[in-house]
């Protein structure tokens, strides 16, 4: 019985609840891109796309790096992956320990 109350996961899912942002992630999964390149297919203004990018960046899903006057965006899947790893490993550790606790309690009745 594992309950995940994971802030980063929540942020990530909230960020991905928007179709434009999902499309941006899908686009960045193929290759990194300049902000201007990301804006093109959506017929959006730069400020509008920047708002979406801010949400994605705050959720830790993308990074932006300056290239002269332009900004390049990269997908950053690590926060999600790491959180999942951590939960999985400690879940295993505690499950097995608690199983032993249960056995210990039964044995020493």
């Amino acid at each position, binding site marked *: 019985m594992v309950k995940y109350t994971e802030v980063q996961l929540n942020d990530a899912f909230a960020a991905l609840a928007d179709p434009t942002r999902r499309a941006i992630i899908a686009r960045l999964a193929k290759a990194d891109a300049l902000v201007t390149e990301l804006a093109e297919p959506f017929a959006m203004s730069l400020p509008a796309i920047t708002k979406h990018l801010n949400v994605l960046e705050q959720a*830790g899903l993308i*990074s932006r790096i300056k290239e002269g006057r332009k900004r390049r965006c990269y997908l950053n899947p690590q926060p999600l992956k*790491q959180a999942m790893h951590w939960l999985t490993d400690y879940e295993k550790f505690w499950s097995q320990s*608690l199983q*032993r*606790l249960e*056995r210990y309690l039964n044995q020493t009745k």
Partner: protein
Amino acid sequence: MQTSVDTTLTLVRKLNAPIEKVFDAWFTAEALSQWFAPQDSYTTIVHTLEARHGGHYRIEMISPEKESYIVSGKYLEVDKPHKLVFSWSWDHDKTCDSLVSVVLTSKDGYTELVLTHSGLPTETAAQLHEEGWTGCLSRLPQAL
């Protein structure tokens, strides 16, 4: 860019024993050494267990290959026999520092245990380097 990752794991168990006995199993060296290990093949030595608020604990788990894993911390909240909160830190990797809380509730004929392991302090994106994290995590399964 600051990114904080707050990771919380919660496990719930029904234990067929009185609440006092379950609490003592967590809070006495003799009992802990008998069950606190991820696998039967491990040997557990409780080096320190200061059973009081603010007291420290230090527990060593030794694998069949004689590898030693030491976890230590401090009892931050002691409400016998209902609640125990302690910090959690592996000797071999301080990036794993976190917090464990054990809450016990006496139910009809059993004791409910809610274990929460939380607050892995990974505050900056720089700290989120795959290397540091996977190092911390990859060593864990070896201990299991």
